C-alpha cells in the first residue's frame, strides 16, 4: 500500500473489530489501524483532547470507518463535529454499520459522510466490501491536505 497513514476504526463491538481487522488483513491492508471504542474517544482522538492531549494533530488518518451505534456519543453526532471543525472537515468518513434504515442513511449523507456501507452478514461479502473500500479510500481517493 502506498499511503501508510493510519485508518481509524470506531467500533464498540469486539467481534466486529476482529472481523474487520481480519478483512483488512485478508485484503493485504497493512496500514496502522487505530481502534476507538466509542464516540467520546473518537472525538478525543481527533481533536487531541482527554487521553489524546499529547497527540500530534498533524498526523491525520487516511480514512475514518465508523459505526453509527456507539456508546456515549453516537456516530452521527461524531460525524457532525468532524464536519464542523476546520481541522477535520475534509477527513474521509465511511459509515460502516448494520442499519439499513432510510433515515440513518439520509442523515449520514446530510451530515457529510463520504460513504455509507452496510456490513453484510456473509463474511465473504464483507471481505469483498472491505476490499473495495480499501481500494478506493486508501489508493484512489485524493483529498485536500
Amino acid at each position, binding site marked *: 500500500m502506498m499511503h501508510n497513514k493510519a485508518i481509524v476504526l470506531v467500533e464498540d463491538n469486539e*467481534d*466486529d473489530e476482529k472481523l474487520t481487522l*481480519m478483512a483488512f488483513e485478508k485484503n493485504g491492508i497493512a496500514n496502522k489501524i487505530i481502534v476507538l471504542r466509542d464516540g467520546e474517544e473518537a472525538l478525543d482522538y481527533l481533536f487531541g483532547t482527554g487521553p489524546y492531549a499529547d497527540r500530534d494533530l498533524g498526523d491525520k488518518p487516511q480514512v475514518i470507518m465508523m459505526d453509527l*451505534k456507539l456508546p456515549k456519543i453516537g456516530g452521527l453526532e461524531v460525524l457532525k463535529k468532524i464536519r464542523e471543525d476546520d481541522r477535520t472537515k475534509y477527513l474521509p468518513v465511511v459509515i460502516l*454499520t*448494520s442499519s439499513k434504515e*432510510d433515515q440513518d442513511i439520509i442523515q449520514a449523507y446530510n451530515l457529510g459522510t463520504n460513504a455509507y456501507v452496510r456490513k453484510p*452478514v456473509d463474511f465473504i461479502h*464483507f471481505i469483498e466490501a472491505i476490499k473495495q473500500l480499501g481500494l478506493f479510500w486508501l489508493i484512489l481517493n485524493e483529498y485536500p491536505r
Partner: protein
Amino acid sequence: MNGSIQQKVALGIGLVSFILCLAIGFIYNSVIDSIQTRNKVLQSRQVLQDLNNILVDITEAETGQRGYLLTERPRYLIPYTTSIRDIQHNLDDLQLLAKQDSILSKHLKLLETAIHSKLSELQKSIDLYRTKGKDAAMQVVLTDEGQKLMEEVRSRIGQVNDSENILLQSRRQQNLYNQQVTFVALPVSGFIIFFLLGLVYWVVSRESVQREKAQQELNQLNQVLQKNMTLLNSIIENVPGMIFLKDAKELRFQLFNKAAEDVVGFSSEEVLGKNDYDFFPKEQADQFTSKDQQTLTLKTLVNIEEEEILTKQGHTRILRTKKVPILNEKGDSAYLLGISQDITEFKRTQEHIQQLNHRLEGQVTHLNTLNKELESFSYSVSHDLRAPLRSIDGFSQAILESAEDKLDETEKDYLRRVRTSSQQMAQLIDDLLNLSQVTRAELNIDLRVNLSDIACDIATELQRLEPNRHVSFEIEEGIIVKGDSGLLKVALHNLICNAWKFTSKQSEAVISFKSYQQEDIQVFALHDNGAGFNMAYAPKLFEAFQRLHTNKEFPGTGIGLAIVQKIITRHRGKIWAEGQVDHGATFYFTLGNVQQEEARSDDA
C-alpha cells in the same frame, strides 16, 4: 263626487219633505179656501132664499091686509101676522148672515128701512080701519103710497139680490179656480216628490252597489288576511325552534309555540297570560327577566349563549336564546320576541366528543409511544441482531479457512450449515424490516410510474445475476400507473423474483407481465409456468411466514408476498392468485386511485 251618502240622502229627504210640506200646505189652503167659498156660496144662496121669502111674506102680508080691509073678516089677518113674524125671522137671519159682509149689511139696512116703512103703512091702514072705519082706511089704501113703498121694497130686494148674485158668481169662479189649481198642483208636487224620491233611491242604490262592492273587496281582503294569518300561525307553530312572545309591560306570555311546549313541558294554555315567576324557580325567573329587561331597555338583540331551564317534568334543559324587542310605531318596546334552541343534546354530544377526543389524544400519544418503541425495536433488530450473526458467520468462515486441513468434510459441512443458517436469519431479519418499513413509510405518489420499465430492469438484473438460466420474459410495454414508485418497485421485484425462483426447475421458463381491462378496472397479471400451487392454499399465500414449499425445494422467508399485499393494499388495490401445482401461477393485482392526502390519512 262630493259629500257623503248620508249628506246626499239627508238633502234629498229634506227637499222631499219641504216640497211635501209645501204641497200639503197648498192643498190644505185650497181645501180651506174651497170650504170657505162653499160656505159663502151657501150663505149667498141663503141670503137669496131669505130675500125671496121676505118678498113672498110681504106680498102675503099685503094680501092679508087687503083681504081684511075688504072683508072685515079677522081671519084674513092670520096670514098677515104670520107673514110679519116670518119677515122679522128672515130679517134676523139675514142680519146674522150679513155680519161679516159690510156691503150686504149696508144694503140690508136700506132694505130693512123700506120693509119697515111698508109694514108700518100696512099696519097704519089696519089701525085706521079699526079706529076710523073702512073709508078712512080705504082712503089710505087708495093712495099710491102703498104702491110706492112696495116698489121701494122690491127695488131694495132686487138690489141685494143682484149684489148677492154677483158675489155668488165670483165665489163660484173662485171655487172653480181653486179646484183647478189643486188639480194641477197635486200631480205636479206628486211628480216632483216621486222624482226626488227616485233620485234619492238612485243615489242610495248606486251608493249601496258601491258599498257592496267595497264590502266584497273587504271580504276578499279579509279572507286573504285570514289565510295569511293562518299560514303565519302554522309557521310559528311548526317552526322547529322554541318561539315565545311577551308583552313589554308585565312580561306575560302572549305566544308560546309547539316547540316551546315540547321543550318546557307546559302547554300554551297554561303559560299564556302568565310570567316566568309562575313556572320557573326564582333564580331562573330572575335571570330570564333581567335579560328581558335588558333587551327591552337597550332595544337591541340580546344573545344568550347558554341558559338553564327547569321543565315541568323537573328536568334541566340547556337553551341557546336570542331575545329581540318589537317596537311600536312610536319606537317604544311593545313586545319581547324570544327564539330558543334546545342545545342540551348538542352540549351532551359536545361533552361526549370532548371526552372521546381526550381519550383519543391519549390513545394517539400511546400509539406514538408504541410507534417509537417499535421503531427503536426495529432499529435494534436491524443493528443488534445482525451483529452476532456476522460474528457467527465470520468466525465460522475464519475457522473454515484457517483450519481447512484439520477439519474433515462433516465438520466443514457443519460449519457451512452454521453459516447458511445465520445468513438465512439475516435475510429473515431484513425481510421483517422491509415489511415494517412498507407499513410505516409514507406514500410518495408519482403520477406516472412505468411498471413495464421496472419489470424489464428487474428481469435484466435477475438474468445478469444468474446468466445460466434460460427464462423468457414477456413484458407488455407502456404500462403506466399512479403510485409510489419505490414501493411498486419492491412489489414487482418480489413478484418477479418469486416467479424467477419457482421456475428454476423449468427448462423453458416463461414469465409474463401484462395488463387488461375488466369492468373499467385495470388488472395487472404476472404469470409464470413454474411450480404453481394448490388453490386450496391460495388464501394463505399472502400471510407472513406462510410457505407452501420447503426451504430445500425453494428457499425463502415467507414474507415477500406479505410485503406485496401490503403495498397493493396501501395503494387501495387488491391482489389475488390463481395456480395449479406444476402448471404455474398467476398473480393479479389492481391499483386504486390514491391521493397524496389519502395516503397520509392512511398513514395516521
